[in-house]
């Protein structure tokens, strides 16, 4: 009954005293990989379960072996050193960790990395660079849609996905008519962006930035 290959892998879990991640192939060299291995502890110490996962991040294939407990957020930040996605609460209560998986925005802190076998993941680093900003990033700069900057990558990933959601006709809590095409109003943007908290209070400017990009797209 059982025996999908990945399950086999997880059964062949590596018993390690240290669960330092091991990077394969295309993954960058990371500090942890240079850590001298600590001897495997004898006796009753609980085992660490490792599992291998492959996915693509910003178009690049990645394969890493991880402690199964590693969230997608920590895999990105601590193992792939893609620190653009932020840890604000680690409990799905703030949105700073928002990334786009398979075209949809999710909280990367509330999903295990090993559950993303084969997924296409897009992070803030995949949208643009300081020298070549994505239109949404440029609009945030222009409209001062941030202050401390910590929630900003999540806001921007969310904003990009929100415009796609509206285009796809997904309704929201404030849509007056569930059966009419979704509208691009200020109230719609604010409702849809409400999973991204900005304690600095840049909301009014963020709404203006998104509106400008949406207008350009339309």
């Amino acid at each position: 009954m059982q025996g999908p290959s990945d399950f086999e892998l997880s059964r062949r879990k590596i018993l390690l005293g240290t669960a330092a991640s091991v990077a394969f192939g295309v993954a960058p060299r990371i500090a942890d990989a240079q850590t001298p291995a600590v001897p495997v502890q004898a006796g009753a110490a609980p085992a660490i379960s490792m599992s291998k996962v492959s996915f693509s991040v910003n178009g690049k294939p990645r394969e890493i072996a991880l402690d199964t407990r590693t969230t997608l957020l920590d895999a990105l930040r601590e193992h792939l050193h893609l620190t653009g996605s932020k840890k604000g609460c680690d409990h799905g209560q703030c949105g700073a960790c928002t990334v786009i998986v398979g075209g949809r925005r999710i909280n990367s802190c509330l999903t295990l990395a090993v559950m993303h076998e084969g997924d296409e993941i897009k992070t803030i680093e995949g949208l643009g660079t300081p020298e070549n900003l994505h239109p949404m990033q440029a609009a945030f700069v222009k409209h001062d849609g941030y202050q401390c900057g910590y929630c900003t990558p999540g806001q921007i990933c969310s904003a990009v996905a929100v415009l796609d959601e509206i285009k796809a006709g997904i309704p929201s809590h404030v849509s007056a008519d569930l059966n009419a095409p979704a509208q691009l109003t200020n109230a719609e943007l604010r409702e849809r962006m409400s999973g991204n908290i900005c304690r600095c209070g840049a909301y009014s400017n963020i709404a203006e930035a998104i509106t400008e990009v949406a207008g350009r797209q339309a």
Partner: protein
Amino acid sequence: MKFESPATTNPIDQLKIVGQSVSRIDGPLKTTGTAPYAYERHDVVANQAYGYVVGSAIAKGRIKSIDLGAAKAAPGVLAIVTADNAGKLDKGRLNTAKLLGGPEIQHYHQAIAVVVAETFEQARAAAQLIRVDYAAEQGAFDLASLLDKAKPNPITAGPADTAVGDFAANFAAAPVRLDARYSTPDEAHAMMEPHATIAAWEGDKLTLWTSNQMIAWNKAEMAKILGMRAENVRLDSPFVGGGFGGKLFPRADALLAALGARAAKRPVKVALQRPLMFNNTTHRPATIQRIRIGATRDGKITAIGHESWSGDLPGGKADGAVAQTRLLYAGAHRMTATRLATLDLPEGNAMRAPGEATGMMALEIAVDEMAEKLGMDPIEFRILNDTQVDPEKPERPFSQRQLTECFRTGAERFGWSKRNPQPGRVRDGRWLVGIGAAAAFRNNLLTKSAARVRLDNGGIVTVETDMTDIGTGSYTIIAQTAAEMMGVPLEKVKVRLGDSAFPVSAGSGGQWGGNNSTAGVYAACVKLREAVAQKLGFNSAEAEFADGEVRSGNRRVPLAQAAADGGLSAEDEIEYGDLAKKYQQSTFGAHFVEVGVDAATAEIRVRRMLAVCAAGRILNPKTARSQVIGAMTMGVGAALMEELVVDKRTGFFVNHDLAAYEVPVHADIPHQEMFFLDETDPMSSPMKAKGVAELGICGVAAAVANAVYNATGVRVRDYPITLDKLLEQMPDVG
């Protein structure tokens, strides 16, 4: 440079770059996720291990025993530090409670251990294996029950009690009187970036890559706590993911990363987990306030009194809620009193505009209530009682005071004249609609600030100062200042902040950062201009710095040429004489808010907001506006939802995560209008600027409260104004 007499014309007045709405120079980094925050600095030191903090499960008492056995044996664990093995630790001068508790416990979730392991997952799992046996003691957790036991306590703005004239007699004799009690709850900073630090030891030298508002304070504090020489401690905080006062002082992340790194003999990174932060760190303390206003029938205030009670741990400080009442309105007979009760709740401390934020929440409702008693328009009542001098010391004028102009301008822009003074009369479908106003007031604080400026042979000007940018826009206004002073475009300026190796700045707090840190950069640039002029053979008094050149008469030399045979560097600080004693320096504003209150459910939603502010020269209207609208947003939270709920049986904040402690989300905040009045204040600094980052939160919650009253006719004096406090008095449904 000592600033002792009012500023005259200087290069900043050109306003080619200063005063312009330029976009933040750190914007491309922040919007691409490439600005490095403390926990993310994989590049600064190799071999980082992970620390996870354990918080106390009781509010007060002692640890009888602590069993680390299972945790020590857990996979990947490198070290566990508790008070037992941490070595001797001093308490910081700026902290009230110890950052590492045990055996004595001072508050809930006080850190009692840090577990260091190879990975975050291992450290977290091992931390959860620590077993602690406590002897809990009964503590004091209920401010309202302790008012009689509270003792006088001074506030930042002055002594515990102040009195002018004969308040009691004149209040009693006033024909129109208000005597009301208000309360504000404990509030959390809830900045988006949790407190975080990477610590590394090199011999007896400690480096902390951390998230901190006040670099020099914290360098000294960490040295004191660890018993080290200050020169052996380095802090680096180039990007700070919000602070609001919560990162003014060292927190457990910094100390426990340092102790963990020492024990594990490896660099260690620690971030406070969000559910721990609310009880582990500081918060804005709750207040109970009594305000009495006596006036003549035509609305002149004759007596004004403001008393405030708050609580804190033994040795702690009172909230300064009465501070603005000493300065905001005229009135010959006045008193304020501040009382502090001992509470065993987590440490109360500064949060955005400490004092004025809570004080204005109460005072500006009281003023609205008083105007109604008088049958006056609340704005006209405020204008009638405006004062251009310190009402406690009439020989001290305000350096600038445009409160009346703020109200007049705002009233015009907001459509105040359409307000129906009869509450509960305006309806828009299911919504009862009301508008409210309140004054904004916050003092301008002067503190010395230094910077170093370098010129290289490519004409690049580099500014270094330990100033921090906590979202305030420091990088940008400092670059604007240096560009204006040296006559170069903004792209030719590099700004490096937040490193304790740099000259000591004002830091970020009390809305003092912008004016003081740029004035320090101004001072350093004046010195650099002199060095450049000397090098190039100009008379420094006549040399003009513009367009990348130094000019005088017909002679023009490229600025970079001054550094052709090696860079030029200058360092100076701004320090202040007694202008602030002779002139009261404050910032002013007027808030306008329109709310809708659902006639059935009493849900309150903000529909419109406007603030008009007068706060000296606005160095960058784009970033300054953001500071104000951000503060307005936080004020909406304070008005409508924010409250750390105290479990008075066991003494902790129950709603200690971002789901249960609600702060405003996008849907709560409409498009916000914000307008600055023209103002330059030559008494403040050569920049002629003042603080603005905290002004925006002062008064806004009261404007919301007054709008709710105007919409419903229900006066709520206990924040936050939630629907359950309105429901019974709402109109019948159906």
